């Protein structure tokens, strides 16, 4: 299992990357963490002419506080997220989710941005990015634009990123004392792709939850928010009946997709179980 031959360029600047992408189009691939790309290349399920290494681009690195946002650069690794005090303070659900991503050796290389732009429906970060209302900052030759995470993941492995654009990083609104969250993931083995997962974030006042984001992953072709369940819960005091209603709503509204060992029916069932657990956990916090 050896990759087909390709050329390699270590890019020194964003404009250089964008120019190369324009020049080579789909014959070029960007490599950040490379934890998906390299496996694909080894298996010859992709044979680019050119691999553009963006790992040295400082603009894509770092976790920083900027005004009312937390900036998480596209090249920030899963391990950095796992360990960063800023994440713990301002986007704690990311820290809760990180250990579920594969294994340490992979988290040391795999990146936040790489995971977002692949948009694997089973991946943790796309769902989390929606749950925390992140904004994707993308740059193309025409300049920069901002895409809310909730509009970023348009279809299976398909994002709103244009072929000649790259993801610079994300802006994440800062979590405060009122914010509660629950990250739920069911995987057959630790680090495997989830059978079903949920990134849930809300604001809590007393027993009432508001601004709810219940974003499921590995159940459909993209991460998917249970909008009706969110609306049911928003601003309400959460009690047993409401939980039951929200669970029913989520099961009804999400069109689940089977995977190799789990039926769509099982995933629909698990959607409800995870939501119930998340709601109870957020109330308990």
């Amino acid at each position: 299992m050896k990759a087909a031959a390709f050329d390699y360029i270590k890019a020194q600047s964003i404009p250089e990357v964008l120019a190369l992408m324009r020049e080579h189009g789909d014959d070029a691939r960007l490599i950040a963490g490379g934890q998906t790309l390299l496996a694909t290349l080894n298996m010859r399920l992709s044979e680019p002419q050119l691999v553009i290494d963006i790992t040295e681009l400082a603009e894509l690195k770092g976790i920083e506080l900027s005004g009312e946002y937390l900036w998480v650069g596209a090249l920030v690794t899963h391990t950095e997220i796992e360990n960063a005090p800023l994440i713990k303070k301002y986007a704690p659900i990311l820290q809760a989710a990180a250990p579920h991503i594969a294994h340490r050796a992979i988290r040391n290389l795999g990146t936040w941005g790489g995971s977002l732009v692949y948009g694997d429906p089973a991946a943790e970060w796309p769902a989390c990015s929606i749950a925390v209302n992140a904004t994707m900052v993308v740059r193309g030759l025409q300049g920069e634009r901002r895409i809310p995470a909730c509009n970023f993941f348009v279809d299976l492995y398909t994002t709103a990123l244009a072929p000649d654009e790259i993801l610079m990083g994300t802006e994440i609104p800062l979590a405060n004392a009122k914010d509660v969250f629950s990250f739920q993931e069911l995987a057959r083995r630790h680090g495997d792709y989830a059978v079903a997962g949920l990134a849930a974030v809300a604001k809590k006042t007393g027993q009432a939850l508001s601004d709810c984001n219940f974003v499921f992953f590995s159940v459909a072709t993209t991460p998917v928010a249970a909008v009706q369940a969110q609306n049911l819960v928003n601003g309400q005091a959460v009690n047993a009946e409401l939980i039951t209603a929200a669970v029913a709503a989520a099961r009804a509204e999400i069109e689940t997709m089977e995977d190799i060992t789990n039926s769509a029916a099982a995933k629909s069932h698990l959607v409800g179980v995870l939501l119930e657990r998340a709601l109870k956990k957020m109330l308990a916090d």
Partner: protein
Amino acid sequence: MELNGEQFIAASVPAVWRGLNDVAVLGKAIPGCEAIERISPEEVHAKVMFKIGPVRARFAGKLLLSEVVEEKSCSMAFEGSGGAAGFAKGRSRVELISAEGGTLVSFTTEASIGGKLGQIGGRLISASAKKIADDFFEAFAKELNPLASEISNGGES
């Protein structure tokens, strides 16, 4: 793997039928189609670049039409070889039903993906196939009725 669906297209049954039999239209509608030619009334050959997530595989394939009932229904057998990456094959039954303001295209497909692609891609093969079908019909509808499809796609991206 089974893939069944219905797709409304804002164009008349004859127009849809012509489209389905017009390699120029098909060429624009088939996702990743790089070349397409009609060998005989029943046989079409195509080169398609299959793109899904990190995967890229160039398929050379042929499509065989049978049980053709003008402007109503037909069966297609297709097989494509992606070289080292694997192959895809299957058969599909397509029916056109006249509907309010256009045509309902219903299809039932039985397909299998073999070789490496099947061995690795199992997790998302059926989702990928569904996406390809959706993309095809979206583009197909655009071809037949640009205006209608643009409206239907309003709000995208």
